[in-house]
């Protein structure tokens, strides 16, 4: 063959000119998009990632300029769907005529509803998207038929067709490391990034659609990466981007049962062998029944600093309704174990679920008092919401209790007075800015506790850290108790129509005052010792 003509090279050149744009939620770093981007780039395509939270004008101009062969929309939270729809309508109006596809749990499990809600969509990539998306882009690029691609759903005239599901990725280590076109979260100058060690969840919680997502596609539900590969990725991130803190985003970090305990043990061994264990911190999400002192102590010694657990309820009935397959005592035992071995914990908690009663609300508050009454962590809670693809949504629908829509799914409680309770409590929590949002008191306290763990583990001994942490715990304990009393007062009022009327302005002022005090103490402490912190950061740079 003449050196002037090399079809392979020519194909590569043409490929390199093709653009693909992926739009999704990028806060905290979106590893799902990162993996899709990585496989597309490996296949020779130019990929641009856009944050859905960016200005719509900016999104539009970026996409128009990129002139892509495909725009992929990643939907994590189903209540974003109308926003995506509006964005796509806007793009179409401005002449963007390329293929629009969407992926995620909701579009996968509700492809028909998704295609109806967003008529601008050409297809839905169902289940894990890496292989399907690359095939789709290849087909579009070569102008070949894309409608027979396994794992795709699409509209044909007035019908909706889903091709057979593609099996889940059998070997996660065959995937490239995900692209991380986002800035790390910075905690006292130390940088944090998300990472995945596994995919899938073996449990069947009724409020969660993850298991439905993974069980509907063929293939093994839970797949783990090789511990050595996980550590190699951590090492690369540590060396190339100075990442010290790794936030494992696994659906359920592999810790339960002998096989996964052995896997976690290997990960610990690899971290020690790499020398990383003394230089980094990491956080995992797991179930309370996987918390076992010996293994968790070993993990702590290899850098584990926080364990997030979906505790979800402090009542046996609540745990049964949520199909957690765990007991209140197991939840309490996990918390006690973590406290004993010196690991901080964060938790998810649903104060209200479809089985709730005033008595369960009180029981839940007592449970929260028991676990965080000492101020080891800020209290937090929410109402369970019936998202699509979850068994609880199906059961609420069957019993006629489901209400709302895709963007605001909801249900009636069995006791109508609880609906009034929820409305009042939600308004107070919202107005006082206690639990949710970037300026919420809970978030301020959570972050301050995280910083203490980071100072203790990633910096030399800072004088006065014990006194500072004790004070932070006192503030946390006091604000937790205020929150609990507020919930109890609202419950009493709704149940008996008697009791003190809460002064929301006073509560808001109290909440704001605690937030300011905690922030001021924190700033004073860090300023006082910043020479130590900055010296350590400079030495690590």
């Amino acid at each position, binding site marked *: 063959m003449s050196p002037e003509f090399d079809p392979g090279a020519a194909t590569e050149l043409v490929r390199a000119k093709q653009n693909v744009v992926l739009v999704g*939620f990028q*806060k*905290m770093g979106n590893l799902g998009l990162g993996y899709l981007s990585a496989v597309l780039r490996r296949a020779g395509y130019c990929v641009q990632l856009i944050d859905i939270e960016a200005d*719509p*004008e900016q999104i539009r101009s970026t996409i128009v300029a990129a002139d892509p062969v495909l725009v992929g929309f990643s939907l*994590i*939270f189903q*209540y*974003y769907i*109308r*926003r995506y729809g*509006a*964005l796509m*309508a*806007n793009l179409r*109006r401005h002449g963007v005529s390329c293929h629009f596809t969407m992926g995620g749990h909701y579009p996968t499990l509700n492809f028909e509803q998704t295609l109806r809600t967003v008529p601008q969509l050409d297809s839905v990539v169902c289940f894990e998207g890496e292989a399907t998306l690359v095939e789709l882009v290849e087909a579009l690029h070569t102008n070949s038929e894309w409608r027979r691609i396994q794992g795709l759903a699409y509209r044909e005239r007035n019908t909706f067709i889903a091709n057979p599901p593609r099996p889940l990725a059998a070997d996660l280590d065959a995937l490239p490391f995900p692209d991380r076109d986002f800035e790390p*979260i*910075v905690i*006292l*100058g130390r940088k944090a990034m998300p990472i995945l060690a596994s995919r899938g969840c073996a449990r069947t919680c009724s409020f969660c659609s993850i298991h439905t997502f993974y069980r509907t596609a063929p293939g093994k539900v839970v797949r783990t990466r090789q511990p050595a590969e996980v550590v190699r990725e951590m090492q690369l991130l540590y060396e190339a981007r100075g990442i010290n803190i790794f936030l494992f985003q696994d659906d359920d970090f592999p810790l339960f049962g002998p096989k996964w305990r052995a896997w976690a043990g290997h990960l610990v061994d690899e971290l020690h062998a790499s020398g990383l264990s003394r230089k980094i911190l990491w956080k995992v999400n797991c179930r309370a029944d996987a918390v076992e002192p010996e293994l968790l102590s070993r993990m702590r010694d290899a850098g584990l600093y926080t364990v997030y657990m979906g505790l979800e309820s402090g009542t046996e009935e609540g745990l049964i309704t949520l199909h957690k397959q765990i007991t209140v005592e197991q939840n309490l035992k996990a918390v006690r174990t973590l406290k004993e071995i010196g690991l901080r914990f964060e938790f*998810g908690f*649903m104060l209200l679920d479809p089985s709730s009663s005033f008595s369960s609300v009180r029981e839940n508050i007592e449970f929260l008092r028991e676990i965080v009454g000492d101020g080891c962590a800020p209290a937090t809670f*929410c*109402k*369970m*919401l019936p*998202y699509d693809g979850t068994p609880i949504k199906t059961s609420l629908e069957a019993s006629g209790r489901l209400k709302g829509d895709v*963007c*605001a799914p*909801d249900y009636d409680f069995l006791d109508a007075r609880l609906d009034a309770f929820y*409305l009042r409590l*939600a*308004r107070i*929590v*919202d*107005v006082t800015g206690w*639990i*949710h*949002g*970037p*300026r*919420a008191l809970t*978030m*301020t306290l*959570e*972050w*301050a506790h995280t*910083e203490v763990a980071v100072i203790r583990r990633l910096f030399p001994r800072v004088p006065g850290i014990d006194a500072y942490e004790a004070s932070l715990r006192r503030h946390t304990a006091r604000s937790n108790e205020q929150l609990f009393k507020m919930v109890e007062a609202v419950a009493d009022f709704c149940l008996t129509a008697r009791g003190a009327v809460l002064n929301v302005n006073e509560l808001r002022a109290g909440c704001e005052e605690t937030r300011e005090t905690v*922030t001021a103490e*924190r*700033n*004073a402490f*860090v*300023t*006082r010792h*910043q020479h130590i*912190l*900055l010296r350590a*950061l400079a030495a690590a740079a």
Partner: protein
Amino acid sequence: MADIDTSLVFNPHWIWDPAIWRILDENDKAQATAVINIQLDLIRETLTAQLNAVANLKQLLTP
């Protein structure tokens, strides 16, 4: 007291929680506002195009 170094500034990071309070929630408001803004943008553009068309037509009809 010395100023705090920029690398050590307190910056609580909001972990986006899907199981949120639905009423008056910041996220709901943000979603609704984002959708309305995009729709308003479309309406504005459509009206501008129509006004321009009317102006052009007037110009053509003006003897």
